């Protein structure tokens, strides 16, 4: 069940990136895809063990801490990606006054002619 939901989340994100015309919605789609992958890693790593990965005395049967540690960095990288792409979107908006990629394309062709 979890995997179905995560695959659906990933595909919604990919669909937003591939189909939607609005740049801001594309950036949101990138965030969706990243969140789906992060959640998948954490859920798969938690498949073994039951306790959180904090070793008090006598703690046994912890979940695998490695996917969690890797996903920590992935989350920060996703913030970087979002910020950089929003910066480019802002620049495009300043240049063309719109977030619609079709309109930007027609204006570019119009300028080049």
């Amino acid at each position, binding site marked *: 069940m979890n*995997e179905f939901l*995560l*695959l659906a989340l*990933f*595909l919604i994100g*990919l*669909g937003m990136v*591939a*189909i939607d015309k609005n740049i801001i919605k594309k950036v949101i789609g990138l965030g969706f895809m990243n969140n789906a992958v992060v959640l*998948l890693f954490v859920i*798969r*790593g938690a*498949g*073994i*063990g039951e306790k*959180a*990965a*904090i*070793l*008090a005395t006598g703690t*046994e049967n*912890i*979940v*695998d*801490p*490695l996917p*969690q*540690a*890797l996903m*920590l*960095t992935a*989350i*920060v*990288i996703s*913030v*970087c*990606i979002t*910020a*950089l792409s*929003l*910066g*480019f979107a*802002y*620049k495009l908006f*300043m240049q063309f006054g719109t977030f619609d990629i079709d309109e930007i394309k027609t204006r570019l062709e119009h300028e080049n002619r």
Partner: protein
Amino acid sequence: MKFREQAPGMAACLIAAMIMAPIFFLKAPWPVQLRDRYEAHTIEETGARNVVSAIYLGYRAFDTLGEAIVLFIAVLGTLHVMQQSSSNSKAELARWNQSRNASNGSTVRFITGKVGPIILVFGFYVMTFGYSSPGGGFQGGAVLASGIIFIALGYIRTKRTALKQMKDLHHIEVVSFVLLIAAFFSGIVVGTGFLANPFSHDDIQPVVFITLLNIIVGIKVGASIGLLAIAMYAGDIHE
């Protein structure tokens, strides 16, 4: 017409679904050997009770170094992109100041001034106790960044204050980045090796190194994300 425009994107989604489905529905058992090793040896090797922070600051510190470099480059790139965006006339500046003054009223300033410092203290708590409780550098840094954004919402009323705050944050970020690299190289000076823990069990507990790195990473992440958010808030950032 509408469908014809969307068809390639939908086809891409379908293909991606077929490629990704085996990865998402993998039934292979997750390997337990590494988990068992961490469970048995983490405390004696690094001194940290929180295995996750022991991994990203001890066993896989190289990962954290790469992440810090990526974050630094992303901040530089974003600032560079935002800087070139438009010209900055006097009328534009006045309009900016007026719009920001209208958007944050006295209520927002009052609340952010009271709650912001508490969020900052909580961020430092999450960083300092990251070795033995849920939390650590990255999480504390994110809390710190939200505190910085919170304070900036009430504090930034003119473009000049925004630019000054961004400059300060950038200095903090650069200094913490240099400190991080120095901490990673300190193992070479002592003789334990690159990225290794310079403190042995004899004089200083090795967990001191983890806590130190947690605080440095937290300040760096907090300053970077706060800087990015304020750059977005301030719009075009010509001096």
